[in-house]
């Protein structure tokens, strides 16, 4: 066991060993307080300014370009890999803030079919500054990785949200009923296959760079979408205790995240976070 591995709690699905007092709670973007949102935007802006392996460019690039493209799709590893990816990204959000400041990834509940949340849609903030959640530069990809045989080079993310063609109605996003139907599935392989399809549908609904694997993760909305996917997996795990991850070996490494295996992604509280409907804090006195 490496030194780094020994620093990460090993989780096998049992109740968390994480201290309650240090647990981070991911919330719906529509439930964030002004303070939550300010902290998240500040952390993201700090990451956007870093050009090294702590920065947004580096972490967005792991999913797609620059090569190697590391994301995992169409596989039972889809959910564990993306949970590890969000975990590492969130650690760097925390690093970007003063010690002790809580910040976590919000989730975008697209199943309410309200479209892109205002926090991510508005180009400008009330103070006139650019909203870092509305889009980001696409940087750090060598010219020779745009080959005329793949997606065209872009300098900034774009979206074109809307229904995916004739007949899908005005919303076009997966509905709450579809999410419930997926949550009711009992077998992991069945569940992950159907959930990944809803995930794909949302990527296509957002359109623009979000619909293209090589550059999708450069859109800040990517992380809120994947927090929703991770939350649905977490809800499914609570509803089907012991259901596991099918035939995936628990000791399977999740590259390029050197301290995490599949086993360590099986319990979100073991990774120091959970999904909450709301939080409210106060100190006596």
């Amino acid at each position, binding site marked *: 066991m490496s030194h780094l591995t020994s620093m990460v709690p090993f989780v096998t699905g049992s109740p968390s060993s994480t201290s309650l007092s240090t647990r981070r709670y991911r919330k719906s973007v529509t439930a964030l307080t002004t303070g939550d949102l300010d902290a998240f935007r500040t952390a993201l802006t700090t990451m956007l300014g870093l050009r090294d392996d702590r920065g947004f460019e580096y972490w967005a690039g792991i999913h797609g370009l620059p090569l190697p493209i590391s994301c995992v799709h169409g596989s039972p590893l889809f959910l564990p890999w993306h949970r590890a990816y969000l975990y590492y990204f969130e650690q760097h959000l925390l690093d970007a803030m003063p010690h002790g400041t809580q910040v976590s990834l919000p989730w975008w509940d697209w199943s309410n079919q309200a479209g892109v949340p205002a926090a991510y849609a508005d180009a400008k903030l009330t103070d006139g500054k650019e909203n870092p959640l509305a889009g980001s530069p696409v940087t750090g990809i060598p010219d020779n*990785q745009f080959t005329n045989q793949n997606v*065209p080079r872009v300098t900034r993310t774009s979206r*074109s949200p809307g229904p*995916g063609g004739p007949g899908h109605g005005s919303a076009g996003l997966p509905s709450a009923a579809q999410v419930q139907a997926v949550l009711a599935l009992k077998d992991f392989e069945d569940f992950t296959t*159907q959930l990944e399809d809803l995930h*794909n549908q949302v*990527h296509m609904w957002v359109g*623009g760079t979000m619909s293209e694997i*090589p550059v999708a993760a450069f859109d800040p909305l990517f992380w809120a979408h994947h927090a929703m996917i991770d939350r649905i997996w977490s809800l499914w795990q609570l509803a089907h205790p012991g259901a596991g991850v099918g035939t995936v070996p628990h000791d399977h490494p999740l*590259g390029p995240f050197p301290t995490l295996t599949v086993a360590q992604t099986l319990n979100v509280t073991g990774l120091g976070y959970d999904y909450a409907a709301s939080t409210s804090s106060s100190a006596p006195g």
Partner: protein
Amino acid sequence: MAEFVSNPLTVTLRAPGEPYERADLEFHGVDHSRASYEARLFINDPDAGPDTPTTDESYAGSFWIFGHGGCAGDEGHCEPPRERRPFDFRPEHQLTPVSKRVMITGKLRALVQPGEQFTVRIVPYVRPESAERLPDNLVSDLLHVDRVDLITYQ
């Protein structure tokens, strides 16, 4: 500007004679190397195309492909190996074809009598804004599927 050329495929299957609780269409060997697309499934509708709405009675469901977006490497970079060598412990090639599953229980019951043959028309659909931005090779001749199975459960 690329032109999206739909290349729908039609397969013929047979519904079970016995009652079933669930019916799935499984698609194996699905290519995902190019643009993202929706594959729409129409039962006994051989003329269905990209303009056929999903409100049509023959529409049975969709699967979605989050496309790899073409090849960013040199020649051969995006060709999955034909077979895996012994002791090759690397992750699977990114472009290994995938399998998809679509539950069609209600539609199969409604549109196909027990024991009858039926067709499934698979219609790929690329959003127009994507088709406009992407090079031709990413949006034409998208649909490649090795096999389609109907699996029912009692």
